[in-house]
């Protein structure tokens, strides 16, 4: 299905309380700010958020608004609000090493339910997880991550929903584009089909459901 266009407000209406929402971006680079702001203005609550980090100026707004029940990511220390909410028992946190986080999302989008990784073997982060030896080395079994909705940020889309990104703002966005039932991409510009280089398209339109611009 080719992607359809909506405003940010229309798009976030698809998100229900209690959903799992993947959100792209590393720090503020590549974060879908319009969608984050639009969701902040809704009544949605009890979200599980899958995001590398929760910056005060972006997803931190959802923390302030009490929307997040659980956060899965790699580095929340930069935002004292998250640390405080965690210690106050308001937010559950699941920390993954960043490579495991990426791989789990890619697996979720690729029909792979679980994989083994050397990362975190023998550390506190393998607690409660299966550790198995291959060729004499220990590996941790990690499960795939999937979302109900992914909010991602790209640079340009064509009318079909093919996406290209901008420099290091690419980060987790192409992975999250694979791993949710509904993928909403905030883009700077929508161009006619055929105007993006077919060799340079990073996210083929099969992954993208909704495009949001101004």
């Amino acid at each position, binding site marked *: *299905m*080719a992607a359809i266009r909506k405003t940010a407000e229309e798009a976030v209406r698809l998100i229900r309380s209690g959903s799992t929402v993947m959100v792209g971006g590393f720090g503020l680079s590549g974060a879908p700010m319009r969608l984050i702001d639009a969701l902040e203005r809704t009544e949605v609550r009890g979200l599980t958020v899958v995001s590398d980090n929760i910056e005060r100026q972006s997803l931190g707004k959802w923390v302030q608004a009490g929307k997040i029940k659980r956060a899965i990511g790699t580095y929340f220390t930069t935002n004292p609000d998250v640390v405080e909410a965690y210690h106050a028992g308001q937010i559950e946190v699941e920390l993954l090493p960043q490579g495991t986080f990426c791989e789990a999302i890619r697996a979720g*989008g*690729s*029909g792979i339910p679980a994989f083994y990784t050397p990362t975190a073997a023998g550390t506190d982060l393998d607690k409660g997880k299966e550790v198995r030896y291959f060729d004499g080395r220990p590996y941790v079994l990690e499960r795939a991550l999937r979302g109900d909705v992914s909010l991602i940020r790209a640079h340009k889309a064509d*009318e079909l929903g093919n996406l290209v990104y901008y420099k290091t703002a690419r980060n987790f966005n192409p992975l999250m584009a694979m791993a949710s039932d509904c993928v909403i991409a905030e883009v700077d510009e929508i161009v006619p089909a*055929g105007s993006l280089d077919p060799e340079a*398209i990073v996210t*083929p339109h*099969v992954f993208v459901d909704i495009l949001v611009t101004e």
Partner: protein
Amino acid sequence: MNRKERIRRCIAKRAAQELRDGDVVNLGIGIPTLVNDYIPSEITIHLHTENGMLEVGPTPPPDQADPQLINASRQPISELPGASYFDSGLSFAIMRGGHLDATVIGALQVSQTGDLASWAIPGKPILGVGGAMDLVVGAKRVIVATTHQTKEGEPKLLPKCTYPLTARGEVDVLVTEHAVFRFEEGKMILVEIGDHLALEDLKSITPAEYEIHPHLKVVNRWEGLEQVWEDPVEVRG
């Protein structure tokens, strides 16, 4: 067009009607490739080929064929506006990850529980499985497009496949020159039959056990195609 080709096209034409506007579709080798010729004009579909492309265009004229631009059947193809290229890893992530709306695929055998056998015949020197297993396990709708019987008149629709399986219980729709079946909750249901044969005729060439849908459609399967036989008995041969 010879008789065999007319049968293949009858099947492809009916399978094409299973597709929906906007579907991203992978067409397998053989009869499924012909489906592209019969996409209803009012819908748009987006063709994926597992060797790494979306928005596959029609076969180019021979003088414009590029040996590096091929589909999974290794035939020259062209690119449509909005085409994209990707490696085989992402291509199979699309397939296995459930991102294809549908696949149309051939069969050697289909069981009444929706098992598919399509890649190997015991005793034959087959050394290939290709991409069929990932396609069938991953696509949202698996549409099998196949002749009702083998060239030798052996049944293909069976209680249980006797050939090596491609996947278990993944078939959603089965289109032959005689009939259309759907698979729901492990049951095989006849939903459409050609008006060129009787229910008993169909039964006699279909060892698989199937229910008959209360709103069974009886249709002329050859509309728009030249009629290829008068006598349903010939059908069985």
